[in-house]
């Protein structure tokens, strides 16, 4: 994979490989696995239905995976969303939406970056 492309979309390749016990091949296949991961789709559905407990669960999952794959930008924004939802008993859409949009943008950038890095091996 082209690591400079990953770096531009907020994915720290070197840290990720270290986390995967220096197994670069497994790390890269896990990044590709992320392309098929249904977590963000669950977030979209929850957001569309203003189902904030489901949104929290999906954002929490996304944060966990993003952290373990060293997708630092996505991790930062998904963490901000989970922290807000956890601390707020009655979330308001005008507060949730900007946080959600940040996650969405970071997610789609990361997806595009992984695809581009894969195609430019």
């Amino acid at each position: 994979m082209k690591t400079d492309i990953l770096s531009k979309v907020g994915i720290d390749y070197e840290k990720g490989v270290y986390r995967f016990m220096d197994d670069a091949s497994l790390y890269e296949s896990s990044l590709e696995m992320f392309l098929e991961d249904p977590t963000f789709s669950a977030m979209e559905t929850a957001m569309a239905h203003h189902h904030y407990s489901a949104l929290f669960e999906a954002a929490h999952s996304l944060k966990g995976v993003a952290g373990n794959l060293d997708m630092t930008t996505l991790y930062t924004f998904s963490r901000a969303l989970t922290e807000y939802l956890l601390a707020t008993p009655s979330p308001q859409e005008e507060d949730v939406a900007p946080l959600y949009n940040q996650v969405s943008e970071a997610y789609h950038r990361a997806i595009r970056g992984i695809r581009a890095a894969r195609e430019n091996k």
Partner: protein
Amino acid sequence: MSNEKKNVLLIVDDLQINRVLLKRIFQDNYNVIEASNGAEALDILQKRNDISIMLLDLIMPVMDGFGVLNRMNAIPTCRDLPVIVVTACGDAEMQIRALKEGAAEVITSPYNPQIILHRVETILFKTLLTRESNAVRRYCPIFSGIVGGAALVRSVNGSLILLRANDEFFEILGAGRETLVLSEREEAILSALLHECDAIGKLQQKTVQRSIDNSIIVNIRAFPMENSTYFLNIYPADLQVIK
């Protein structure tokens, strides 16, 4: 090291990528098995009694980590099983709740591979020490009135740990000693005996004769106890013992 000698680690996480990462971290030193939710984990725990330690996610579909912790108390073989909660959740209240409900430790992601490896090993070691001290307490009465040498040993990853032994045990095997350390020769003799016990499986008692230093023939009887613990009785072959 062959697979059967490794400790068995159960990873419970609904996210495949997290399971892949944890498996990679532990697969060199453990036999790793996986469950994708709490219900699957409980099913495995009810069917297998060889799980050494469990890494448990908290937020999962079907049954979450708290559900697993609550139900484990009802499964006799799980009561002493060490559980490490692995979660992306940094919320202190949830972490404290997990600890109160039986988790030995909480580790938050992103995981540092060296730290999580070290913590699992430390908790496993502490659990083993606790079990050994419980076993010594439980079987202490057996030592009184025994004819010949008596010892309580545990087989761990192919090595023997001597938990307790009487003076006669050391006298028969070699010079009298004050430390609970087996020599290579003694460990080889006892390992061979225990291997025979393991191979036979249902055997409750076996007597074999082995030459220790070409001058003494001993009878060794091994009694399988629990959790790979054996009670050994060693006495000179010419000594008449009431069986």
